[in-house]
């Protein structure tokens, strides 16, 4: 049995490479930039990167004395309160993945997460 130093070296690097490949999702988590986009009546109102540096909450004044209270957390965004009758936007809860959205129909506000998105589907039936 003659195993040369070189063999062991190659083996070592191969195993290291393989382990690195297998663990890449843990070592470098998916930090793909997620951006929350707030649209009012079809126009982009604000874009907020969803990351630890943007934790905030604010109230947007809308036409006819309406308001919507938005909370941005480190990995999600949600509507805390809104002056709308149905409160669907509040019940929707927090969204965090590209493609998810919050719609406030009475106030014509849409909040959605953009990003690489989900290329698995073309649209959503709900």
């Amino acid at each position, binding site marked *: *049995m*003659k*195993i040369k130093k070189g*063999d062991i070296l*190659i*083996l070592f690097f*191969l*195993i290291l*490479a*393989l382990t690195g*490949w297998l663990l890449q999702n843990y070592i470098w988590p998916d930090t793909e930039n997620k951006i929350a986009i707030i*649209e009012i*009546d*079809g126009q982009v109102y604000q874009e907020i990167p969803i990351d630890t540096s943007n934790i905030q909450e604010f109230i947007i004044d809308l036409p006819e004395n309406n308001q919507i209270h938005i909370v941005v957390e480190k990995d999600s965004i949600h509507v805390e309160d809104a002056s709308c*009758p*149905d409160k*669907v936007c509040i*019940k*929707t*809860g*927090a*969204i965090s*993945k590209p*493609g*998810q*959205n*919050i*719609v406030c*129909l009475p106030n*014509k506000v*849409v909040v*959605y997460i953009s990003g690489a998105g*989900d*290329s*698995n*589907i*073309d*649209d*959503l*039936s*709900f």
Partner: protein
Amino acid sequence: MYRKRLFHTLLLLIIIISLIITGCTKNIKLPQEEITPTAKTTFLMGTLVKITIYDELKNDSVFDKAFNRIQEIEDKMTINKDSEISEIIRLNKTAGKDFTPLSPDTFYVLEKGKYYSELSDGQFDITIGPIVKLWNIDTENVHIPQDTEIKTKLPLVNYRNLELDKDQKQAKLLKSNMIVDLGAIAKGYAADEVAKILTSNGIKNAIINLGGNILTIGVKPDGSPWRLGLQDPFEPRGDYMGVVKLADQALVSSGTYEKYFEQNGKRYHHIIDPQTGYPAENNLISVSIITKESIDADALSTSIFLLGLDKGMEIIEDLPNTEAIFITYDKKVYVSQGITKEQFEITKPEFQLQ
């Protein structure tokens, strides 16, 4: 010598495996054929309307034509605005008195609405208006109505008392205080009309989305079918539990999960059973219908939901080019016979296909 060969074989194996694994991921991540669709959204018919066109466009005028058409349909058929031009408001106001002349649009939708009321034997009823008004589910004053109020209004709900005169294109509600509500069908019609406009403007690949009602035109530019996510009824909007493939088809879902309110710890949703006057209570959380035309899928999604799993499935199996997906509260999924594994793929394992 033997052990050395074994060692080298092992080494080779590791190299090959590494190459295969890394090679594979590269292949998967290869960018697909570049498709840059144009999408426009707006608020119409009390919902979010999105049109996505995959053809090359010289200008945006086709979107305006489509949105104008939806506005026109809304103006004719709404009961929620003080619209002077709403034919349905006029029809309701003259209930018990006169015939109301109607445009071909409104007459067609009323005819379809009555047809599905008949098909479901009144489980779906387009004269549900008086009860819907009591529940006010979209408004600030949402509350459980008095049982006596419901009992008083319930006799007004009867599609048989909607008289349609096809020759003269006019309609009449036979009892006063009756109210027609096209909320469960008008969006379906609007999508079909948008499809006509897009097609006549040369569009071959597009998705029309009216508040979650989907109508597809053609297939994807690469020739493969459209892939539509089916909303997971237990998660926020955008999370889907499966993928439905469509080509030139409509997909409409009705469920208890979107519009509801809670009172005394009980949840009240927006799909009202015309027999009881209360939100339908069965084990279904959602029903999705696939048809050729969107108006049929729209009316059927509510009708079949109200009929429940057994009766609903029976009716679906009798209708041509019509398929259904039922989801129950305990995450069981039932599909009609025409739905193949190829056409509908469940992506969340907690949903069990029966």
